[in-house]
């Protein structure tokens, strides 16, 4: 069983009391407990089981404007005492930083509404095994599939965040995640692809057979890929790739990159950064949302934020420290976005596919080719050549490149938005990017 609120609260207040006693002017502490159980399958038989049971504690102590932090997995009172002593000693010799402080009291979350983020259902390992058997049975039904690997993880977590201004709250969350990776082979090639599902509640997880079928289908269609010539061509990004553009955008508008001056979106507030049909929203209170939260990692209340309105940048993601640097109030985004999404576009998926007589549909990218200082983007890619709205043949060993500044202004979104993950995007088209191939 995951530790209850009372246990975590007692540890948290022990830490705060101790820090105060030693002379800290302020302190903040997070105590968490998490239990995960995973079952792994390969080629329709059990391959591994894994149980993890982890406690985590992190403390920040302040002496005026001086601050330092410690973290530990060892929650014995004696160890905590040694660590807080060490933390406070370090605080004393750390230079002052005028922006260091606990969050403004009036911004702290006051009312915690239930977002239904915890499902207490126990999905015993035997049931996970049954689910994975069904999944792999359907994933391996085609003889071109030569290897299947799948897993099911159940996680239950609980945490308490407390600070010396009296904030003390936390809540349980759960997640159920399953994934399937399949390998297909023909005389020319061997390819891999995947499908997964991750939900707060067990009953929302995709059907095992659907997941297996989809993984297999996505893998088989990649067989015997060709490399294409280098050219400028319009790109269509599958949903699982288009959401990555949102993540890159979110990193570029974090108050820390803005304050440090290391973002290509610095000083762009109230300016056009996306095509004017584009709206980007970060909504923390979606019921059962994978990214939902009642407050951020500092205890600050988080409300829905419109980040992009008709293509115009409206808000950064602000935490207390960097907010003070930028002279902005925290908007409860210490720790980043919550449930981030593009509002859906007004063209259907089919029409998007047919918009150009020839385009390249991207299903996977590899590499770390996003430079958020300059906006330059260059990654390896895999996908399909599309002609007249139809997949013609699979394509690999190519790269796609451009600059986010131009790419964002050329985005066209389909109307097929679904809320599956904590970051969600419809299918996306960007015209005028460079493909490097032969």
């Amino acid at each position, binding site marked *: 069983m995951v530790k209850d609120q009372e246990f975590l609260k007692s540890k948290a207040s022990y830490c705060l009391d101790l820090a105060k006693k030693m002379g800290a002017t302020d302190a903040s502490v997070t105590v968490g407990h998490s239990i995960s159980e995973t079952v792994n399958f390969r080629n329709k038989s*059990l*391959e591994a089981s894994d149980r*993890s049971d982890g406690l985590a504690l992190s403390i920040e102590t302040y002496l005026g404007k001086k601050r330092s932090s410690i973290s530990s997995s060892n929650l014995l009172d004696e160890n905590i005492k040694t660590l807080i002593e060490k933390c406070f000693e*370090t605080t004393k010799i750390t230079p002052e930083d005028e922006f260091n402080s606990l969050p403004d009291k009036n911004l702290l979350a006051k009312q915690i509404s239930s977002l239904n983020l915890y499902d207490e259902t126990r999905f015993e390992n035997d049931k996970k095994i049954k689910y994975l058997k069904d999944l792999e049975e359907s994933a391996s039904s085609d003889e071109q599939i030569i290897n299947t690997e799948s897993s099911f993880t159940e996680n239950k977590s609980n945490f308490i965040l407390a600070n010396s201004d009296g904030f003390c709250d936390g809540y349980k969350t759960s997640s159920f995640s399953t994934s399937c990776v399949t390998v297909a082979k023909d005389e020319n090639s061997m390819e891999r692809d995947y499908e997964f599902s991750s939900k707060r509640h067990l009953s929302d997880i995709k059907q095992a057979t659907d997941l297996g079928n989809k993984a297999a289908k996505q893998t088989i269609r990649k067989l015997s890929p060709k490399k294409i010539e*280098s050219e400028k061509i319009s790109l269509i990004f599958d949903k699982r790739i288009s959401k990555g553009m949102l993540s890159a955008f979110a990193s570029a508008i974090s108050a820390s990159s803005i304050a*440090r001056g290391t973002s290509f979106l610095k000083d762009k507030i109230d300016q056009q950064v996306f095509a004017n049909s584009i709206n980007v929203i970060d909504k923390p209170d979606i019921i059962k949302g994978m990214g939902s939260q009642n407050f951020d990692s500092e205890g600050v209340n988080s409300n829905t934020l419109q980040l992009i309105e008709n293509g115009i940048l409206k808000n950064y993601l602000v935490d207390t420290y960097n907010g003070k640097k930028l002279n902005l109030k925290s908007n409860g985004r210490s720790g980043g976005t919550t449930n981030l999404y593009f509002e859906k576009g007004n063209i259907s998926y089919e029409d998007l596919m047919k918009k150009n007589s020839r385009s390249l549909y991207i299903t996977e990218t590899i590499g770390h080719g996003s430079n958020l200082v300059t906006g330059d983007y260059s990654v390896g890619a895999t996908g399909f050549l599309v002609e007249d709205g139809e997949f013609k043949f699979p394509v690999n060993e190519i790269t796609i490149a451009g600059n986010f500044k131009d790419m964002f202004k050329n985005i066209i979104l389909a109307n097929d938005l679904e809320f599956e993950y904590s970051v969600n995007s419809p299918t996306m088209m960007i015209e005028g990017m460079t493909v490097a191939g032969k």
Partner: protein
Amino acid sequence: MSNFFNKFDLTRQDADKIVSETLNNCDDGELYLEESKSESIMLDDNKIKSSNYSSDLGFGFRAISNEVVSYSYSNEISKDSLKNSSENLKSTLKSIKGTYNHEIPKSNKKFYEDINPIEQKTLDSKLEVLNKVNDFLRKKDGSVKQVTASFAGEHKSIEIIRSGGEALTDVRPLIRFNVSVMLEKNGRKETGVYGIGGRQSYDDYLKNDNWKNVCEEAFRIASVNLESKPAPAGEMKVVLGPGWPAILIHEAIGHGLEGDFNRKKTSAFHDLMGEKVASEGVTIVDDGTIDNRRGSLTIDDEGTPTERTVLIENGILKNFMQDRHNARLMNTKSTGSGRRENYRHIVLPRMRNTMMLSGNQTQDEMIKSVNKGIFAVSFGGGQVDITSGKFVFNCTEAYEINYGKIGSPIKGATLIGDGPSILKEVSMVGNDMMLDPGIGTCGKAGQGVPVGVAQPSILIDKMTVGGTKL
């Protein structure tokens, strides 16, 4: 050396008894105990942004029978906790019986000293170095707009207890010192990053004001990039500089030669043992035994002493990298490559220091032989799709080559290639093998472990460069 017992109510005798009783009917497994202390101190934006210290303690209990691995970890090294884990392992393996393999090789060699780098340098003197870095760079040139400098240190103690009570221990120091600088000139911004590190004390790396060299190198990379032009797009010849660019070897070849992917036949290399996979003159080894290197280990995380494993010899595929589990199933021996990020994770076969050995040509000869191509000197990260064999890495410093001469610097571009065929495109191997500066972390299945790479300059006849200029 940490004493893991009697912190809670568990004695060594209790642990031996539970381990032996749990693993008796299994093929392999062990109790892995770990205590680590780590620190990170960062200066950013003219201020000490963070100073964090953390301590971590826990165990991971593993039982293996046939192909099934059962694993359980906890932070509490107590009787109850270990018994719970034992029950958990037994319930997974209840219907599969094995015969425990007690054999584990022994060695007295050590590849680093038993030191605690965190305690060997005072916090004051670390802060002093960080402030000096900041002042030095900001005074150096008016274009410097941002400086980040950091220390990261770790002291990790492990103990492995096998069935029958055999215990193996290791103490592993690790440090890293990093500088990142952002320049702005004529409205353009570029960053340069450089770092050093390994398994010695901070001062071993920082003596003779070596921090200045780290600053100069980060500044130089950023300055070069300020002048960069859009990179070309398409297939062309690529000359790689020595040292860190060997992450190409790590991504393109290394991962594909890890035992697990080959046992499962999901690696593009699984049926190529004994075959020619590289040009003649190409020899690649994975070596865990180089003194004080970031990727070196006295014993791996299963207790096997590490070794120098020849992967490719003169173009021929010779060996895969193995942990005990995959070695047993493939009827071979562990190469001391069983590694894990920490006690929360299962062991996987991983790389240590992956190196392409020197040939006899010069970098100059390579550049002169290229009409149109690029010269890549420094890289960011890389990634590989094991199954299709396609891999990428990102240049952070590269130049055009025009008619045998190095031309303008080009913007960061991704290079993409095919692992099983790329080494056949190597047409020249340099005489200038160099180790990387000690900064690599390799990610696999969500676990990061410190690694090293090395190579001489090489000429690759055909690779796709992912620029924007057609």
